[in-house]
């Protein structure tokens, strides 16, 4: 394959093209297998849930202030939609955070639906899931695969962190770092950096997979 023959210094375009083709092939092969699809599904769902929790969009309904009282029991299923969802959905409230357009309450769980953030979360979830799926398939394959289990963890970490930094400085309270102009500037760039690092990790994982051993 081109990735094996082209040199990154002598012919960078051919080398990169070969790398992408090889990675795409590894992804296709991985997702054709049941363990690959299962990994993608589980990881993507888990990531999206964590991302939504990190944003504060998903969690337990009610709180200390609104428990009890005289309002009666809360409905099992409730949906509130803002008056102008289309306009509201595109209103940015912070870097990579957009205004929610609906609040869905299902029993003890409530979910704030912000369409742009849902797309961002699903995109990140898909990237992390695909990378881990390729890693798992390669790891479970014959020893000829030149990849270890550590690659999977490496693939997931930046994406997970990016999900939590989306909730802004409140994450700093959890990890005990005081915000400064520098820290906040870094936080603003964390999500695109995470997306970039996920692509790089995916290409790296894909380049390490020998297609012949994972068919």
């Amino acid at each position, binding site marked *: 394959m081109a990735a094996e023959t082209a040199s990154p210094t002598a012919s960078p375009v051919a080398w990169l093209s070969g790398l992408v083709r090889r990675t*795409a092939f590894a992804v296709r092969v991985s997702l054709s297998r049941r363990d690959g699809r299962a990994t993608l599904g589980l990881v993507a769902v888990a990531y999206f849930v964590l991302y939504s929790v990190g944003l504060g969009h998903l969690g337990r309904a009610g709180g*200390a202030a*609104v428990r009890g009282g005289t309002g009666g029991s809360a409905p099992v299923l409730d949906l509130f939609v803002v*008056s102008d969802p289309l306009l509201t959905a595109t209103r940015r409230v912070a870097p990579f955070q957009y205004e929610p357009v609906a609040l869905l309450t299902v029993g003890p769980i409530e979910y704030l639906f912000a369409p742009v953030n849902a797309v961002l979360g699903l995109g990140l979830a898909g990237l992390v899931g695909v990378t881990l799926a390729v890693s798992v398939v390669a790891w479970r394959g014959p020893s000829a695969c030149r990849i270890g289990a550590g690659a999977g963890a490496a693939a997931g970490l930046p994406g997970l962190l990016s999900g939590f930094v989306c909730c802004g400085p*409140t994450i700093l309270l959890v990890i005990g770092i005081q915000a400064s102009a520098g820290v906040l500037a870094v936080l603003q760039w964390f999500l695109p950096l995470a997306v970039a690092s996920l692509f790089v990790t995916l290409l790296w994982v894909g380049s390490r997979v020998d297609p012949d051993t994972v068919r």
Partner: protein
Amino acid sequence: MKRTRRSTVGSLTALGIAGLAGCLDGGIVGSIREGGEAGEGGEAGEGAGSGTTGETGGSADGNDGSSDGTVPPTADGSRYLAYELDHLREESLSGGVGVDGIPSIDDPNFAPIDESNLVDDAPVFGVVRDGEAKAYPQHVLVHHEIVNDTLGGDPVAVTYCPLTGTTQGFERGATTFGVSGQLVNSNLIMYDRETESRWPQMLATGIDGSMYSETLREFPVVWTTLGEWRSERPDSAILTDDTGYARRYGNDPYGVYAPIGGYYAADETMFPALSTPEAGHAKSVVIGARSADGAVAFDKETLLAERVLEGRLEPADDDVVAVADPALSTGYVYRTPGDATVEPDGNGYRVEGGEAGSGGGFDADDLPLDRVLAFDAMWFAWAGFYPDTGFAGEHTEAGYGR
């Protein structure tokens, strides 16, 4: 298969572009403008009078700012400031959201307070103006920070900064206030939508824009609980969570007050303070007051236990006294010129040597002395803005003085 892959790549590319757009859009994190529009001044502590008089402790009239009242009305004189205004502007930083990223409530809805389903211990911010009583629940304001409302026929803004634990009321004229997304000393920097001047809430003073160095007209807001406010003001209305926004109002992103936990109980702060006091828990609550020439803080828990605390506005060295109002778990601050003294008298208070004469049985909010507007604040925030503040009482733990 090929088409699916291309679609996926296209979607991810779009996400990347959206991500970069999210990062590079300068409108997201509203920045304090450079000093081009800054007016003259910046001198701290100038001006006459505290601007807080009368039984409500509200601000004295200054001017309406413009003939049509479209800019926020201002008070006579200024508030004491320990720092130059330009320094305060330079110390401002992003709180992580953009201009109006935390949306103010501009169309508030209210219900009779006896219809509320909040627990009795839930913190609410109570206001009475021209006989009209309203309560603003903390769990709603933590998601909006500013309510542009009308009270007693007057356009006002009731504001709350969760990071400094401060709730204050301002007259707003025909304009409205919004959340700039910037903080100084962890405190909310508001902006008025007419001139876009920047106003740190606790200072009530313009630090940038065409209203630089002007002082807003304030009125008192009481930090109390739903149960206490309902007992004292059964005629009150209460702000509902029918705000027009989709929010998880049962979820406070910073912590919880009943019982206290999270940021509200931690000795650490999220953002750097302008200065750090030598003693005291960062989140212990003080009742702070400032005049044109000084500031004073009374530990709230100590005040509620001892009922009367004497203190001094520093660096002015002016005597003041704080008295507790157990019914609302709050306190009020009065000047004590000369040898005037205050002591408990049954459920009320006795004043000796005041300019209006001596007497007993006065309610805590109705002493015959010159009242200074006061409000609750986390100790770190008060000491950060006023490092040379007077202090009275014992330092206590985090809480809201109850």
